[in-house]
């Protein structure tokens, strides 16, 4: 049995490798093939692809559009009745970093700031190696250790559970960065991608629209430069009834997002029915980013 399992995994990995090589156009075909192979051989990997529909119920054709409806429904409620959460299906994440890049683009992040890095672990030694990709946005903890330490109360948890930074109040002491067990927060040093080139490139001057304001980068001493920055679950997009950019962009549909307080939402069903875990559970921070494993 053990040997069989190993071989199946190897087959599966090589198939994934082929799929990756095959490129984006071919991938649906290949993944279908992989799916068939899996359903017959590797029964312990549940819901590998497309199986979420089995328990979601309701009428829909596109899960992202359905989650967008969830967001719009939630936005009609008072803020304190919403509880935003995210679930990331690590079985689906291929480690392409599309979310990382889309987030940087959406929030016009400068060099050295990344709200959604993807940690890539290699487990085992060659030739028995497997990879694990773990996207790591802000966990938007229920009990955030980062907010209590702020000397001026510039960072706090909103009523809807999103942990934010008031850019106009943050003094840039960086104490919160030391307090975050997930090492999420980053400091804006005022750098440009085009530093060292004859002129500042236009893309470097693009403003960020975080917190529904326009933040320019013209002056090295103005916010958000000199501030601590972090993922906001794209609060400015939610306000417009849009999903966070990382969820929208994910090529594998590995992200689920919505209002945990809404039992009909995709996220509530995913978190309650699938095998989810959180990072560093022992800290008691109660992250609202769940991982499906």
């Amino acid at each position, binding site marked *: 049995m053990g040997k069989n399992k190993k071989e199946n995994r190897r087959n599966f990995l090589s198939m994934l490798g082929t799929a990756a090589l095959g490129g984006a156009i071919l991938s649906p075909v290949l993944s279908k093939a992989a799916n068939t192979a899996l359903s017959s051989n590797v029964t312990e990997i549940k819901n590998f692809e497309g199986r979420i529909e089995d328990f979601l119920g309701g009428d829909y054709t596109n899960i992202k559009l359905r989650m967008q409806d969830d967001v719009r429904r939630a936005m009609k409620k008072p803020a304190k009745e919403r509880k935003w959460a995210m679930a990331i299906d690590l079985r689906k994440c291929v480690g392409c970093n599309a979310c990382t890049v889309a987030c940087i683009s959406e929030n016009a992040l400068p060099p050295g700031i990344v709200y959604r890095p993807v940690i890539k672990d290699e487990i085992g030694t060659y030739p028995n190696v497997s990879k694990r990709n773990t996207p790591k946005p802000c966990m938007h903890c229920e009990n955030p250790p980062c907010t209590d330490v702020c000397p001026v109360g510039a960072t706090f948890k909103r009523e809807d559970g999103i942990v934010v930074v008031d850019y106009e109040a943050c003094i*840039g002491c960086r*104490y919160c960065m030391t307090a*975050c067990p997930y090492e999420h927060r980053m400091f804006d040093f*005022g750098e440009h991608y085009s530093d060292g080139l004859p002129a500042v490139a236009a893309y470097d001057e693009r403003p960020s629209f975080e917190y529904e304001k326009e933040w320019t980068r013209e002056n090295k001493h103005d916010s958000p430069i000199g501030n601590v920055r972090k993922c906001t679950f794209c609060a400015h997009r939610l306000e417009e009834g849009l999903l966070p950019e990382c969820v929208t962009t994910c090529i594998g549909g590995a992200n689920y997002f919505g209002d945990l307080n809404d039992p009909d939402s995709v996220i509530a069903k995913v978190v309650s029915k699938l095998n989810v875990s959180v990072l560093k559970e022992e800290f008691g921070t109660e992250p609202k980013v769940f991982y499906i494993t």
Partner: protein
Amino acid sequence: MKKIFYILWAVAFILGIIGVGMRLMYGHEPAAYGSRVVWGLWVAMYIYFIGLSAGAFLLSSLVYVFNIKIFEKVGKLALITALVTLICALLSIWFDLGHMWRAYEVITRPNLPSSMMAWMIWLYSAYFILLIFETLYAFRIDSGKYSGEELNRLKKRLKILASIGIPLAIAFHGGVGALFGVVSANPMWHSALTPIFFLVGAVASGSALFTAIFAFFWKNKDSEYFNQMIQILAKIVLVSVLFDLLLEWAELSIALWMGTPAHTAGYRAMLFGDYWYVFWIFHLLLGVIIPVWLLATKGKKPIAIGWASLLVALTFLGVRLNIVIPGLINPRVPGEALAYIHPRLSFHYFPSLMEWLVALFIFALGIGLFFIGNKIFKLTEDTENKAL
């Protein structure tokens, strides 16, 4: 000799001003710390100077609270040392802020009672105000302008201020330690011993700085007073350095002894990492072994005491660096270091040119202020003290 010193000081000060100019013009861009090693040389300097200040202040309380006669003549010297080092500390941390001009917010919108940093700021602000008043009273009493009833009233006030000062100095410097101690996400800092370690370190470094100043700058070195005083100071330095070493052993041995990697990583980096020499050479050899040897065996010679104390006082910056940096150079989430590559997300830190220059400015400013203060108030001369 004096000329060389003046030239060196001027060069340091000018270079320092260039550093400050860089900081004001370019913000944090020329700094080497990043989003992983979030605090660097300036934060270490802040806790270093603020420790010196608390230590020197506690020495001054020997005169103004406990009426220990022999310290009368150096009470004001201790107060001025505390004041100058406090100014250096506040400058260090001010340059470190992302938004320097928002520093007032810590007073106008403090996040109390939850933020230990807010507590610390309020406590050292109170200490700063108290220190200024205490110094003013000490100088007034010695000015010779007051007598009789009026003089007694001043003395009483000074004693009350100084008495409040003791718990305040302990609380605010303990608060600096607690600022690190309460960070439960950081196993290296998160220890009940951290605030105590800060306090003992403050007494060791502060008394060492004071002893060095006394040994090298006291005018009348042939007097009986000088000889008596330096022997007492030498004992204070020796005992506090050894006690600090004991606490260090407690902290290190408990954390390292068969500890889990998350708990030992910081200390391993401190002992065997890239900057092993800060611990083994600067701290242990130059800051403990040589000074203890000088103080314990050559303790009769004032010059040996002076050098030993100077070594302790200077190398204590290494102790402070070893609290800040090793606590930050290990990823808290495995794999973090390679998740996204950028210098600001690196776990390696060495201060940049701007950081060194600003550090130079702060040291030069502190030395300059002390010299001016000493010249005006003749703190190191054997004048009659009327404080008691």
